[in-house]
């Protein structure tokens, strides 16, 4: 496989992992505009362990995910006190605080960023992404998944029917944080580098947008969103190289993504992949069970 294709596949895998970090809380009705915070936590933990602590890659990735998950668990009680726009703002503020703290730890490189030696190639990144997808598919079929979907559709009715609101949301937020941490660990070891600037506000915005674009009703939405976000701008860039008259496509390749989001919110605000679509595609018992 050429270097170009393997780079693209690695980026796609990481985008898929991070997508599920946003999807898990979003599927319980919690919007996270601060996924960069969890990604940074996982990236700096895993990166510091392999570069400064001589850990091998697998335990470092797990430790990164665990740290991000633990922090997500601890702050979830505070963040879940807020609702609606306040929650969007609180997660946003959380990511900024994480970035601010990391900037002020000189041993982690500060503003210059953290470089690591250990490399996570395709044999690590792709199975990790596959494992996250399978975990989420399984999780959404459990009783917990049912509770999450009930909360997503109507919080007060779900509560009335005995779904433990607080517990379900805390668990969903924590799992999301841990997956974000895993994504961060993969990111830093794929590029051998991470800094606070490149994983900032814009990163959080992009991930939230492509997850909502795919749709939060089913577990397949984020997968669609991540594939679209990775491949369409890249395809446009390739197209712009073919002919000088198509040069404008290169500068405007993310414009297409923005336009797609705006138009989708008009005509299909629930996202591209919905439950009815999945039922039409996969008729039968299993499809009914997952809806």
């Amino acid at each position: 496989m050429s270097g170009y294709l393997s780079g693209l596949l690695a980026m796609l895998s990481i985008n898929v992992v991070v997508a599920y970090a946003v999807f898990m809380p979003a599927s319980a009705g919690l919007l996270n505009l601060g996924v960069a915070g969890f990604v940074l936590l996982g990236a700096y933990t895993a990166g510091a362990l392999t570069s400064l602590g001589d850990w091998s890659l697998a335990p470092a990735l797990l430790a990164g995910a665990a740290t991000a998950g633990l922090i997500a668990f601890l702050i979830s009680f505070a963040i879940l006190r807020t609702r609606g726009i306040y929650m969007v703002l609180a997660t946003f503020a959380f990511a900024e605080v994480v970035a601010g703290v990391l900037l002020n730890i000189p041993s982690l490189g500060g503003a210059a960023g953290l470089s690591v030696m250990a490399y996570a190639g395709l044999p690590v990144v792709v199975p990790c992404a596959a494992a996250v997808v399978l975990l989420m598919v399984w999780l959404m079929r459990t009783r917990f998944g049912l509770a999450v979907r009930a909360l997503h559709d109507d919080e007060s009715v779900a509560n009335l029917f005995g779904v433990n609101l607080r517990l379900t949301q805390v668990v969903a937020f924590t799992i999301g944080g841990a997956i974000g941490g895993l994504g961060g660990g993969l990111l830093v070891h794929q590029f051998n580098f991470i800094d606070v600037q490149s994983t900032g506000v814009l990163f959080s915005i992009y991930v939230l947008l492509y997850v909502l674009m795919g749709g939060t009703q089913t577990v397949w939405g984020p997968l669609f969103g991540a594939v679209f976000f990775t491949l369409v701008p890249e395809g446009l860039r390739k197209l712009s190289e073919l002919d000088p008259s198509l040069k404008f496509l290169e500068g405007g390749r993310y414009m297409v993504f923005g336009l797609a989001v705006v138009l989708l919110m008009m005509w299909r605000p629930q996202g591209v992949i919905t439950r009815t679509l999945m039922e039409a595609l996969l008729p039968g018992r299993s499809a009914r069970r997952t809806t």
Partner: protein
Amino acid sequence: MQLLQQIINGILLGGILAFVAVAFTLTIGMLNFLNFTIPALFMLAGMVTWALSTAGPHFLGLGWHWLPSVMVGIGVAVLASLLIERFTYRYMKARFGDATEHALPLVSSLGFLIVFEHGASALWSSDPQRFELPFKNTNLEWGGLIFGIPHLVSLFLAIGLVVLLKAVLERTRLGRALRAIAENPNASSLMGVEVQRIVPLVYVIAGMLSAFAGILYAFSYGTVTPFMGDAIATDAIAAMVLGGLGNIWGAIAGGLVVGLVKVLAISTFGAEIEKIPVWGLLLLILIVRPTGLFGQTQLGKGKF
């Protein structure tokens, strides 16, 4: 003297932040909507003004006098804001019934932010552009202290506009209609308020405020980039939260506080510390006291 100059710098930076914060707080108070296109409008006005007033090979490089350029810059931002209204507020009522639905206009506005920023970088490239200022000197010296004129203008204009806005909201028929929409758009529509006609006005005001701020920012720093709105907008969001969502005087006060904290923290501890005091405080406020530091908001209260 050094400290006094820093405090002045902080207040002056706060003047521009206050402008943007008022734009944010207005849309959130009236329409219950965090408008992420504000940084895009800020940028658009600044870049159009630069492009028109600077002669060159770039798009719209006509070399106009600065005054018509500024007016066209503001006009473009207002038109863009009206376009955005068609695609965000109009579709707010597209109910599909789940918990992430309230985020619909927020998501559309983030989409627009990407469209405008990448559109501008496709037109004018993403490199920072030098803005040759039409004025010889943009600083005012008085008693050994330096005041940036665009900042001063921004601060006084912001205060003046807020006084005007408050008067309109409290005294006029239009203001009553706006407050009714903030309270409950459906009920006010039933009571004969023409919601679809009045809401675009909020977007016009927000567009004008962001455009003014963007042009004043471009004048005072002498550079424009397609992404110049992002950092200012994050600070302005902090200022808005500090003042309480929907509270316009709070937004001005919040802007001044954030400007001061930023400048003082940077001059005391270095540039890397700035995020911790502002955003740490903010996270705490959001969790403990979501109405902000200045008490109950007047607009859009009891919505969450």
